[in-house]
């Protein structure tokens, strides 16, 4: 059964609350609007910004908040640079996932090529944050509400996955602003995004994200 886990892990990254969006399943009529909304995620070759991650544990009635910067590169993958309270750096590429302990300069690489768990993980993360509709439709039932802002609800198709990831909600206006992942026990992780900036590629990055671009280039090596 161990081989049954990949989709679960992968889908585990994406999920949602009993938000209103789940009352509106995606229809053929609403599909073009969804694709239009997702295009905000795909329009730029490189999006960088800051994030605030709030992990809520229902049973303990506790919240764990961390902050940092992120980068979504259409070609090279996604980077999550958590700075506070505990620094960690994660790169999710097509063929590998790298956890980089910047302080100790120790990299832990997981090959997505040889392990379907990591391949699914990588694919799902990229599909959620890069708005790849086909990938999303393969693993999730999709719900969609649009107005001034949009909300995309995702519910994993696999029942086994649904026990760990009940739902994901992506919302925003001209940018992806918030992602909420809820597990089967009601615990949730909320990502709030801010200060998004768009660049042509890593070499063209300037300003506050220059350091992140350097790290991104270094981790890719």
């Amino acid at each position, binding site marked *: 059964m161990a081989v*049954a886990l990949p989709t679960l892990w992968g889908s585990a990254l994406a999920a949602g609350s009993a938000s209103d969006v789940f009352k509106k399943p995606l229809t053929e009529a609403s599909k073009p609007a969804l694709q239009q909304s997702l295009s905000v995620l795909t329009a730029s070759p490189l999006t960088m910004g800051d994030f605030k991650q709030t992990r809520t544990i229902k049973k303990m009635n506790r919240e764990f908040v*961390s902050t940092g910067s992120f980068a979504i590169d259409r070609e090279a993958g996604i980077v999550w640079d958590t700075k506070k309270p505990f620094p960690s750096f*994660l790169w999710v590429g097509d063929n590998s996932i790298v956890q980089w302990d910047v302080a100790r300069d120790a990299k832990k690489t997981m090959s997505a090529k040889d392990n379907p768990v990591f391949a699914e993980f990588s694919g799902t993360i990229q599909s959620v944050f890069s708005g790849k509709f086909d990938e999303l439709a393969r693993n999730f039932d999709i719900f969609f509400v649009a107005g001034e802002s949009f909300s995309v609800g995702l519910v994993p198709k696999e029942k086994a996955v649904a*026990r760990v990831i009940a739902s994901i909600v992506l919302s925003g206006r001209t940018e992806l602003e918030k992602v909420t992942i809820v597990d089967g026990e009601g615990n949730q992780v909320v990502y709030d995004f801010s200060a998004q900036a768009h660049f042509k590629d890593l070499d063209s990055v300037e300003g506050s994200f220059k350091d992140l671009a350097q790290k991104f280039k270094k981790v890719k090596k």
Partner: protein
Amino acid sequence: MRPASKKLVSVIIWAAIHVALISLGLLQPWKVESDLYSVLPDSSEFKNVSEAEKALSARSMRNFTVLVGHRDFAVAKSAAEALEASFALDSAFAETRLYVDDSAMQRMSDFFFEYRNVLQGKPVRDLLKAGLMAGDSSAFSAIADMARQKVYGAFTIADLSHLEDDPFLLGAESFDYFTFHSQLMGGRFTLRDGVLAAEDSSVSYVMWSAALSPTVSTMASDGHVLARLDRVLDSLRQAHEGLRIEKSGVPFHSYESSRNAQSEVAWISGVSIVLILLLLLWAFRTPVPIVCTLVAIGVAICAALSGTWALFGSIHVFTFVFGTSVIGVSIDYAIHFFTDWKHGTSKNGLDIRRHIFKGLLLGFMTTELSYIALTFADFPLLRQMAVFSIVGLASSFATILLLFPNLPLPQGDARAKSMAPTRIPAFILDIYDRFAPRTVVVAGIVLLLALVPGVLKLNIHTDMRALYAMSENLKRSEALNARLNNLGISANYFIVEGSSEQELLQNEEALVRRLDSASSLEQPVLGGYLATSAYIPSLKVQDETFEGIRRLYASPVFGELLRDLNLSSDSVRVPDASPHYLTPQSEIPDSFRSILSMLWIGEVNGKFYSAVFPLHVAANFEVAQFAASLPFVYAVNKMDNVNATLTDLSRVALLLVALAYLLVFVVLVLVYGFVQALKVIRAPVISCFFIAAVFGYCGIPFNFFAIVGVILTLGIGIDYALFFKEGGARNLTTALAVMLSAMTTLISFGSLSFSSFVPVATFGFSVLLGILCCFALSPFSRR
């Protein structure tokens, strides 16, 4: 005693012997083996764990997988569901698996949380060890950082509900290590719509796996469960256009082999019997000898089957093939009897027996001696074949001596109504008579010299791999399965022994340490391994892990972590004074239980055994090298072991038969004197060199099955020379009998050389060559 009473006593003795033998066989439950592995010899270094290995093989030989594929996943899944519905409740299956349990993930997560203080992967155990040994705070800090990463890092699915019970998140760490980083995750199968599915060349394959019930034989038969499975698969193919079915697993190979062997044996035997009957009809021009010969053959086979069954409890399908020699020899004896009846001067059956008795007895004794010699070989299959032949031959001999002379055979005109065709033997003997003795000697020397280079080129070697030709369909299916599973289980593995479960686990850990160091080399010779101790460590290792974790909690790192996680020390549970141990008897999630059932052999004859399978091994990986100096670890290189053992056995069998022949020679010297005995024995001996030389010249490996052919040639080939010796220089009856005997033997064994089953073909070719040569040389032994 009056002659009529004597006759009756003979027939009663014959009937009593056969009724007793056949009853003995009928008392045993009938069991036919088709799998060659089940009867293969144990190599010397492997004898100690033979039972354990057989228990392991028996388990793995029942498992198989069917991949149901279609370009449309929904169609593939629907067909797989129909398959599951057809067999889920079938008693011929121990289990069938299609759906993945929804709660499997949660159960695994609970399991790793429960045993977090004793069950950790190597990276954490190494850090704990470093922390323990040198008070290395950075090692403990690294463990705390892993927890911080899980709490504050991105995209982690660690269950934080247990944070107060497990602030280092050791349960989540263990879960990650044993599931996502497991070697078992290397395949392409993923969970899709409640089943395991994988993509290959735009086709979605759904996995349906099953295990046959231990009571199900893998021998093909009409009502066999695999025949039923094939019918269901065919109907699914018809119902879903473009459906692909790929079957993988030992049961399919055994079933296919036995099905092919059965149909082949059926047509080969059919053709042989028709040809032999036509030959006999041509020779005798009356059905009486044919009917009697068939009775003799039938009775001999029944007796041989019963005797073998009674002694071994089962019979191997290859014994049947070898057992055709019983048919060959039974025909020979019957032919001699009826040729004398038809063509000789004997007045009645008793006269015939008197006339042929000496030659027949010597032939019987020499053949039986060869087979008896084979029973000393330490190989169950060879013994079984020898016993089958010994009993069958004895039955045939008894039929000729006790039954045939007492049959009311037609006499006078009826017997001589038509002459047997003696022109051909007369013509053949004329040719032999034209050779001057000196010419014969020179020709013999030239022949022997010509054989030398071939014999020197001989390659005595048995390679089982070359003997099994997998069908193209099965080959393709196995390749696809290996590609999609990508587990890379090595055919060579280890069996580990211990006097208790704990000693066994500790012994495994000693082996695993060696494998770990080999897999972390710059050029690793293996990619990993599957071992029970990786999932259920010995109590010693569990104690070490537990002690490390207690020290971790006692270290300053713990306080720092509590501060970073904003946890109060009052609310956090530190590990108890004694650990909650994990043992093979503990409740283990099904997904791991199924792996452990493949690895854990358990108690066999008072000792405990388990298997360790290397994964993704390099070409230069040697199991024996890793087992060296570990007396409790046995390297199982099954194929090489079997090949080496069969090669050794071939030599032993030849030596035993040579010794038997020496004994035969002594008997012949006592009966005929040295020179005449030499003349009798030279035909079969030269024939053996002839077989060897032809195999050498043709570059065909002289394998175990060819050597069995040589043994058979020695056993039955001497009869021709003996009959010629007894028959006299110009006895056309003997010449005709030998010619008919040789012809029937050549037909029955020659036809086997057309078999697609390589061992049978090799055996048949070897006997064909030997009998041909024996027949050609035996007239030189005439008086």
